[in-house]
């Protein structure tokens, strides 16, 4: 579920593409029941209590990679642009608009005047320049790689920021919408970086409250918020409640308003007269990675055979309790350029037999499947795959390592098959495709060693193609190639699950996983 870290070397691979993402083709976001029709007049005040499994790690928006932290500091720190509700495009937030030079090398961004930080000082172009430069500076340890194409940021006047690029790079606006480019006061208001993030100051609807690590983190309404009338809530408290059953009971009992990520197994029982069990379309793809550095996975027939043995419907049923859909493509339905007709391999006994007979190991073999320990969903998936492969004489040992060791084993290619997942952070497929198919991206093609000249060429071309139609065609081809080569066995697309108390209104989660709380309100 957690966001992956791209390494620095992916910088060069990151996209040259289209800004007009929202205009591009893309399948309908699947499995949604997220749309909320909340009537009534918003009520002022109240404390929203979010019960979540883990505590946030840090409020540092340029160095932090875990979703719990990200969803928290996003309530305080805002970027110039933001992702649209459907997760497929961007819209101005602190920016008023922008213009692009004819050579597509210079972006001139106008800021909305009169925006104040929670401290009361006005936000100016100097703050924006400092924030973007600061993000770029930490490219090797943080999110700064995303700014790889930026040559220089300047602040010619109070409300104008000019971004000069090294080469044409259309997803700039999508990248500027990433939380790591959120605007903080110039020079951290005179503080050191560490001191500043102990109590961060931003332009968001909420400002820093207090943090009792391991127990709760509280944010309070920002009285200086630039959108008058918002936020409706007086405060938000993120309580750490590791046990899923306890979270459920707290929301049902009224001690908490939102249950973040209820277990799918109990998801149905989360809902009651007072609680809505909600799913929101996401960009999560769960997959089996085949390590091609280990035999026999360098053999495309073995990968295709295994892909054809896995019963995805069973996994969707046993793991997601039918709340997700079987995956057919490298891209997710919530991502621009997803192609619904991609011929991803599904369970097909005849194909599995045929591919096995063509493979280097027609009589089967023994291998292992690596999963992180303590993950009930992955353990269930692994046991289903184990039993799916057994009839073909492929004996799978399930290997469990604690989450950190599991991650290291994947990165160091010390595994044979592994279960993993990806969610998008920006509304552009390139973040994922460069990670997944381009070995030069530094991640050895999602740690599989997959190296297909065709796939690499298609991905690079798609990065540099500005025309959305041509770009869509390239991504179609790329999805077809990866469906055929099966470097990953695509398993399922899972939505985000939330238990939301029925007195909470307007709570929405974007396909990238974040949830703005400015217009959320609580009825009495």
């Amino acid at each position, binding site marked *: 579920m957690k966001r992956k870290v791209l390494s620095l070397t992916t910088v060069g691979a990151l996209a040259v593409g289209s800004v007009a993402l929202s205009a591009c083709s893309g399948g309908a976001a699947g499995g949604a029941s997220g749309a909320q029709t909340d009537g009534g007049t918003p009520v002022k005040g109240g404390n929203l209590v979010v019960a979540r499994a883990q505590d946030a790690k840090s409020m540092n928006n340029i160095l932090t990679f875990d979703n719990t932290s990200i969803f928290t500091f996003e309530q305080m720190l805002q970027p110039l642009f933001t992702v649209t509700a459907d997760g497929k495009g961007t819209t101005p937030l602190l920016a008023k608009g922008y213009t692009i030079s004819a050579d597509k090398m210079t972006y001139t961004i106008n800021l909305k005047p009169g925006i104040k930080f929670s401290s009361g000082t006005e936000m100016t172009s100097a703050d924006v320049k400092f924030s973007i430069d600061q993000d770029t500076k930490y490219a090797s340890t943080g999110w700064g790689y995303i700014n790889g194409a930026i040559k220089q940021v300047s602040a010619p006047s109070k409300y104008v920021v000019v971004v000069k690029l090294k080469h044409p790079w259309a997803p700039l606006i999508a990248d500027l919408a990433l939380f790591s480019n959120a605007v903080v006061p110039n020079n951290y208001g005179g503080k050191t970086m560490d001191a500043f993030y102990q109590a961060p100051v931003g332009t968001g609807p909420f400002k820093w409250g207090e943090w009792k690590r391991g127990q709760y983190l509280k944010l309070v309404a920002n009285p200086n918020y630039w959108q008058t009338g918002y936020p409706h809530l007086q405060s938000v408290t993120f309580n750490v409640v590791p046990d*899923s*059953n306890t979270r*459920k*009971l707290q929301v049902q009992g009224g001690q908490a308003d939102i249950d973040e990520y209820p*277990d799918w*197994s*109990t998801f149905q*029982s989360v809902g009651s007269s007072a609680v809505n069990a909600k799913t929101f379309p996401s960009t999560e793809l769960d997959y089996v990675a085949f390590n091609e550095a280990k035999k026999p996975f360098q053999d495309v027939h073995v990968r295709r055979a295994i892909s054809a043995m896995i019963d995805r419907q*069973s996994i969707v*049923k*046993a793991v997601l309790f039918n709340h997700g859909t079987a995956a057919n493509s490298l891209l997710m339905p919530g991502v621009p350029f997803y192609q619904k007709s991609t011929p991803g391999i599904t369970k097909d006994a005849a194909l599995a037999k045929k591919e096995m007979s063509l493979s280097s190991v027609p009589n089967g073999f023994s291998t292992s499947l690596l999963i992180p*320990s*303590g*993950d*009930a969903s992955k*353990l*269930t998936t*692994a*046991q*289903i795959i*184990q*039993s799916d492969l057994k009839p073909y004489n492929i004996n799978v*040992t*399930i*290997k*469990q390592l*604690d989450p950190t*060791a599991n991650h290291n084993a994947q990165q160091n290619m010390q595994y044979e098959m592994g279960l993993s997942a990806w969610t998008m952070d920006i509304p552009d497929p390139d973040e994922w495709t460069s990670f997944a198919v381009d070995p030069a991206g530094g991640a050895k093609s999602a740690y599989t060693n997959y190296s297909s000249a065709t796939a690499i060429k298609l991905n690079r071309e798609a990065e540099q193609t500005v025309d959305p139609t041509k770009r869509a065609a390239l991504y179609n081809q790329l999805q077809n190639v990866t469906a055929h080569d099966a470097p990953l066995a695509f398993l399922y697309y899972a939505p985000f699950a939330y238990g939301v108390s029925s007195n909470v209104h307007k709570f929405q989660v974007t396909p990238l996983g974040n949830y703005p709380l400015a217009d959320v309100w609580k009825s009495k």
Partner: protein
Amino acid sequence: MSAVATLRRSRRGGQPASRRLRPWYKNGSLVAGLIIVGIMVLLAVLAPLISPDNPLHQNLDQALQGPSGTHWLGTDKLGRDVLSRLLYGARVDLKIGFLAVLIPFVVGSILGAIAGYYGGWIDIIIMRVVDVFYAFPLYLLVIALVFVLGSGERSIYLAIALVSWVSYCKIVRGEVIVARRQEYVQAARLGGLKNMRVLARHVGPNVVSQAITYAMSDIIMDIMVIVTLGYLGLGITPPTAEWGSMISDAQEFITTLWWMAVLPGIAVVITGLGLSLIGDGLGDLLSPERRR
């Protein structure tokens, strides 16, 4: 577990004369314990014959069913029969519990006897090593070892052996220190018998009873270790049925299908109770007061 592990000597009633004559089968705790453990072992051994289904057989259409005629205790997330998994789980847990005690028992007792009998620098070296192992919390050490060795049955044996020999060592050493000052040992030594012979033939039989009594509670401890490791996902590799992983798998359903987690828990408790009773009974039966 410390309460179970506490060594008890029989000092009840102050009537050693009458107790001395009581045969083992009149020892209530011992008999009760043997019956309980006997039934558990029998169920485990006969599991292939009496369990209604293959414990690994998945049937996703029948997942998460309540108790019924076909599945007496219902089915789990993958549609596997809970009763069958419970019975097969006993095989794994009991087998490892009993086997894992052997090596630490032998190694720890021998080292403890040597340390206690010879004293001096041998004692100092052995006991400082014991102190080092004692300084770590048991589970921390076992988990660290399993993590290094990789999960699986062999690692569990190894980890338990490496950690739990120290208890036997301490117990036997203490007993030997007392025993070596006793007249029969002094006599044997003055009679010119070799140290090894004195230790093996005269001291050994008189001190081993405490270690045997402790071993009973240690089996419970080992079962707890296996169950804990299973619960943490570091124990027996799936899909093998095992009580700890059954509890762990069922945890997410605790508010809806509570029996799935509670039943393996009860199995652990009953086994623990049986072994505790045996330990208690053996303590009475083998205590030095009785044998005097």
